[in-house]
């Protein structure tokens, strides 16, 4: 057992830390968020140059062949900076579908664009009624000659407002919540019949609502089995959750560190507020929560590509529960221990608190994963 990073991994972390420190100050982030796409195209190009967009892809596909640990390192740093670029949507989720389910032709067609930074992807799964159930798919894909026709509506497609391609889940057979009869499709954002409405999310990211009205998709854009994609979807989402957990660790680490700095400098009653024992204990509890969460994010990383889907699901749900709980505590406490200042848009902790809150609502909240984990018989074998 070894929790240490390799030299290359440490270098990746250091490089990214330096880049983010230089390019993601509060004012710069505010400017990126206000730009047309809500994130920095320039930085995205820099990520491409540094190879970040190539990390998880196999060398044979033009990637670097990194594993979950590399993704964890990247996501944590992006989280720490509260980066707005669609890394999760494009590389982790979109890339995940290609890596685990894509044909040789699909990989050859899309991965080079992702790696070079030209193409961004988004995962179109959420529906009006589906909540956190990945099998609850009402959007339909109907056979049409050699290809398919998609009809339906998708919402809260994170990164969807600027994405060039969507990975869309659609029902090819069966009833709404059946586990079989679901397909995953690559859909060009410029397809006829596809309309998108972009919007800002509560944490200042971008998302989209997509309406599919008779959108034609060629057979070559089906990922894997057109009626059996759920295991693939679950696998990609589990990896996505592991990545989100790592991002959350970055967000929490930032909130905790910023709070500590504040406790050491802010004075009331002639003393730094960090000298009050009541406050010290709260900061200590935040630290405990952070370390527990960090451990579970590592556990999720370790299990993210486990071949046993059930074991993987147990680990991922356990991690998401821990992240949700720690994140809520650390976010609320960070705001509270700052007093009024963290209630404002002018201070990074408020933004981090919002990001953390939204992470808890992505791919299942704490209660959802608690129930899922209980249903799977817990996490201690």
């Amino acid at each position, binding site marked *: 057992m070894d929790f240490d990073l390799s030299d290359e991994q440490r270098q990746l972390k250091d490089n990214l830390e330096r880049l983010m420190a230089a390019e993601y100050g509060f004012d710069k982030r505010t400017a990126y968020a206000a730009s047309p796409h809500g994130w920095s195209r320039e930085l995205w190009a820099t990520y491409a140059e540094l190879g970040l967009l190539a990390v998880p892809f196999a060398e044979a596909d033009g990637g670097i062949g990194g594993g979950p640990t590399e993704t964890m390192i990247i996501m944590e740093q992006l989280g720490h900076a509260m980066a707005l670029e669609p890394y999760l949507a494009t590389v982790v989720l979109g890339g995940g579908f290609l890596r685990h389910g894509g044909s040789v032709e699909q990989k050859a067609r899309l991965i080079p664009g992702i790696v070079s930074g030209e193409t961004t992807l988004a995962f179109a799964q*959420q*529906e*009006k*009624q589906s*909540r*956190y*159930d990945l099998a*609850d798919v009402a959007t339909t894909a109907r056979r049409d000659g050699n290809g398919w026709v998609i009809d339906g*509506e998708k*919402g*809260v497609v994170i990164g969807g*407002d600027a994405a060039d391609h969507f990975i869309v889940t659609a029902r090819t057979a069966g009833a709404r*919540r059946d586990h079989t009869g679901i397909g995953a499709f690559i859909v060009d954002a410029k397809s006829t019949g596809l309309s998108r*409405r*972009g*919007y*800002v*999310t*509560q*944490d200042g990211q971008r*998302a*989209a*609502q997509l309406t599919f009205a008779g959108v034609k998709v060629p057979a070559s854009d089906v990922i894997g089995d057109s009626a059996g994609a759920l295991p693939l979807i679950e696998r990609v989402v589990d990896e996505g959750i592991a990545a989100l957990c790592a991002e959350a660790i970055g967000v929490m680490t930032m909130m905790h560190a910023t709070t500590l700095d504040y406790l050491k400098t802010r*004075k*009331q*009653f*002639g003393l730094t*507020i960090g000298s*009050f024992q*009541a*406050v010290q204990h709260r900061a200590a509890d935040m630290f405990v929560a952070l370390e527990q969460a960090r451990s579970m994010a590592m556990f999720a990383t370790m299990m993210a590509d486990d071949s046993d889907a059930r074991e993987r699901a147990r680990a991922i749900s356990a991690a998401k529960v821990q992240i949700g709980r720690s994140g809520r505590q650390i976010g*609320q406490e960070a*705001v*509270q221990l700052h*007093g*009024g200042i*963290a*209630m*404002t*848009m*002018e201070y990074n902790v*408020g*933004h981090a*608190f*919002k990001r953390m*809150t*939204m992470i808890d*609502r*992505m791919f299942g*909240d704490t*209660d*959802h994963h*608690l*129930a899922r984990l209980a249903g799977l018989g817990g996490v201690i074998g």
Partner: protein
Amino acid sequence: MDLRFSPEEIAFRDEVRHFFATQIPAAIRNKTIEGRKFEKSDIVTAHKIMYARGWATPNWPKEWGGTGWTPIQQYIFMEELQQSGSPQPLQFNVQMCGPVLIQFASEAQKKRFLPRMASLDDWWCQGFSEPGAGSDLASLKTTAKRDGDTYVVNGQKTWTTLGQYADWIFCLVRTDLAAKKQEGISFLLIDMKTPGITVRPIQTIDGGREVNEVFFDDVRVPVENLVGQENKGWDYAKFLLGNERVGIARVGVSKERIRRIRQLAALERDGDRPIIENPRFAEKLAAVEVELKALEMTQLRVVAAERNRGTGKPDPASSVLKIKGSEIQQATTELLMDIMGPYSIPMADDDMDGSNELPIAPDYAGGIAPAYFNWRKISIYGGTNEIQRNIIAKAVLGL
């Protein structure tokens, strides 16, 4: 001991309930229920309707336009008001500044300020906190230097709620630089139109614009606007803060939220099942309800005890009300987040197509995350919950 309301109290409650249901426009009350923000005009409209009925200042003595209600009646009134979704009569006028003037100001000041304060012809705001003086309010640095029959005020206030609408601000200012910090403070009333005052809005994390910084640059204030004695302002401030604290319990607000939670949890589904039928959710809701019932009984005990203590003097145990009341209000926002799940993620106002319709989610989802963010303030303002615990430890427990 009889913990039930008397028949008279029940009749009074029904009268008040009927008043809010029929007199305050539903379009205003529904904003509370649907989680939308009040406009200035909503607050003014509701206040003036209550004023016309003689109910805008129930806590004031009769001679200044109060109702003469018992503490229990006042409690019933506030709880019914809050459950109806109506805005409260402006607290800065009614709960904060008014009682201070009634207790400590000169007759001339009362005659000048109280009538317009009661009718909301003047909108007041609270100028206490400063960048360096939050929990340690007495360390405030804004100065008022005597120059003939005026004070010259310099400094900065912050977190001034709804200061953008205010005609007047009641301020704590330092009038004696040499004295011990609590002893050099005065309570000064300042016309917001006076030259030298600048208001800068601060946007809160929910996107709202309810707080401001207020800058004072050689602002000349007539000496006649000093309340009570010079350098005695801290006593008046403590009196005011005690009243503010009690007002944050907001049992009626939380009751309204609980009903809303039930309503939305019945509408929103997880698969085939309404969320309210999810045992985990139902138990979480029940647990908050238990806390709220306990708070209600605790508040009634405090209110009933007021008979013996004399009105206007807050119980030191009012810190219990502030801590629990804020925690419960915050818990209701978390339950609403649980109900909306992923549909709380889109932001309602910032649609890039300029459409008002919320993407994918039902309309009522739009205000839910902002309310969760915004209500974190309740454990911060009015004396943070940590400061309330310090008060309990020292003043109640003698530690």
